[in-house]
């Protein structure tokens, strides 16, 4: 049994809109082990980024309920000064857009150096520079001495993302949260960055939470996958099980709407309706039921729970047992028959 690094229990993150609180992350429980990549998949507004930000304690205005256990210490409502001892040291974060994540007025070397300085005040200036150049080397930046003195705008998108990663891993964190780390990048750069994250995982034995909407990235990177819809996890399983035998209607619909797997020019599956906004989220019953109206209401549970269908494979609600795509929509077989 591998060592448990992070355990999130019944996490609920609510934002205040006017006078009411609305939960963007609603009763999410999950865990990450050392040297494991947990991918969190979902579309915009499903709460996957809110979940990541909650773990890092970056939502200081939100109401956070439940437990976030990092190495058995509850960090859910830790004070900022205590959080700052962990953040950047034990936990690192890679942000989606490297241009906004970096300070445009600060030299690359100083930005990475700052992360080191914050957690080790005694580090001398020369030692620090040495270490930063080491880090730049590690993330595959050519001519690190030169880049050390450059500003973010002088670097390409891929290089900037490497700098963000170098900052995140400066103190060799045990947990790394990557929020859509390659969404802003071209596909060849993407594969380089993903390789880099894989290498770092093995080098540092770190646990990684990878947030993405790209199922191809999940297939390449993840050990386990959690699928989120409307603030909840609807399905969680190891990557092979999930890709071979997705059960929840939402997971199956997602797979069917990706053009990559479909035969060219065929119709893609369209999920009916739209993702409900935070205020209009159905709080009772199966949250996905409105998107699959042809499924009889009796198929859904009144209070949908996660059911363990096989070891480690959990599915929310019972509606998956009765689910099938409507006649005339693209058939699943053709997508999964590609191997």
């Amino acid at each position: 049994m591998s060592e448990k690094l992070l355990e999130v229990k019944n996490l609920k993150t609510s934002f205040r809109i006017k006078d009411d609180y609305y939960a963007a992350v609603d009763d999410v429980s999950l865990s990450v082990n050392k040297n494991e990549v947990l991918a969190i998949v979902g579309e915009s507004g499903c709460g996957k980024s809110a979940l990541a930000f909650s773990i890092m304690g970056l939502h200081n205005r939100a109401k956070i309920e439940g437990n976030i256990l990092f190495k058995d210490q509850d960090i859910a409502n830790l004070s900022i000064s205590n959080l700052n001892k962990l953040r950047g040291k034990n936990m690192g974060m890679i942000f989606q857009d490297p241009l906004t994540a970096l300070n445009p007025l600060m030299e690359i070397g100083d930005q990475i150096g700052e992360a080191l300085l914050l957690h080790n005040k005694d580090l001398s200036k020369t030692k620090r520079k040495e270490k930063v150049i080491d880090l730049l080397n590690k993330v595959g930046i050519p001519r690190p001495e030169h880049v050390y003195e450059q500003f973010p705008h002088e670097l390409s998108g891929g290089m900037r993302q490497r700098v963000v990663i170098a900052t995140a891993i400066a103190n060799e964190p045990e947990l790394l949260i990557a929020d859509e780390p390659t969404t802003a990048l071209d596909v060849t750069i993407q594969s380089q960055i993903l390789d880099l994250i894989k290498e770092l995982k093995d080098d540092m034995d770190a646990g990684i939470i990878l947030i993405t909407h790209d199922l191809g990235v999940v297939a390449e990177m993840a050990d386990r996958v959690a699928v989120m819809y409307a603030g909840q996890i609807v399905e969680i399983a190891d990557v092979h099980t999930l890709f071979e035998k997705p059960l929840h209607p939402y997971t199956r619909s997602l797979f069917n709407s990706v053009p990559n797997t479909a035969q060219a020019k065929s119709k893609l599956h369209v999920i009916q309706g739209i993702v409900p906004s935070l205020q209009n989220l159905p709080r009772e019953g199966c949250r996905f039921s409105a998107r699959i109206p042809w499924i009889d209401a009796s198929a859904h549970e009144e209070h949908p729970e996660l059911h363990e269908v096989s070891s480690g494979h959990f599915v929310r609600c019972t509606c998956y047992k009765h689910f099938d795509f409507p006649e005339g929509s693209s058939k699943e077989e053709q997508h999964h028959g590609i191997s």
Partner: protein
Amino acid sequence: MAFLEVEDLKVHFPIKGGIFGRTVGHVKAVDGVSFSLEKGKTYGLVGESGSGKTTTGRAIIGLNKITSGKVMFDGRDITGMKSKSDVRKDIQMIFQDPYSSLNAKKRVIDIVAEPLRNFEKLSKKEERIRVQELMELVGLSPESILKYPHEFSGGQRQRIGIARAIALKPKLIIADEPVSALDVSVQAQVLNFMQDIQEELDLTYLFIGHDLGVIKHMCDNIGIMYKGRYVEEGTTEEIFTNPQHIYTKRLVAAIPDIDPKKRQEQTQFRQEVKAEYEQSYNDYFDDEGLAYQLQPVSDTHLVALPEKG
């Protein structure tokens, strides 16, 4: 004669420098691009950011000034056409970001009717009926024409953008990354819809994109651009199953495989391609790191290779 023919298109942007803002050099965004497009087909223009694919599309429709070269549309030379010439009606554009391409302060009716107001003199009532018809065509309720863009979701907004593009019954639509900003399920909606109206209205698409999965799904022919030049052109089948240029090979290899069982295989394949790329870089690119002229491999398949001998 092809429906759209682009011949040796060049778009160079001046670099201003010095205290007097003199031109000190040029960025060769598009540097000698030629291709042709058959009626009713979808042609994919692929490349990474900065490859010049968007500039090519914008130059064809007249949003970027053409430095040299020729654009022939339906047998007419439209290079540097006047902004209100009739050809403008026949070519329309769908933009990448449905959030910034719609004026937030205008109602949907004003957004969709704008091309109509430019080219057709309709009474208020006729205009309203036309806009309502268009809304129905793109699957939005005709009553919603008085709403503002922020009242719609991303996919709905992109359909408003499409309604505007098809308002004048164009023959060619240049779609510049029309689904890049959208979620997969919404993306599926827009792609399906684009295929439907292509049949219904006999449209020809120039589809600009970087997502090879989407390109493969939509296109009949594909051109791959790198640093303002073509590196390869062929049918979708040829590009994906038999890529010849090392750059194309690398691009195809970089697409994440959706089957987690093939992870090992894929990593190995990618390493092989990377090694080949580094080894044979000089065989495929000239001293400046640019692609050579295209040489035919078969009737439809062209690859940028140095001339033999």
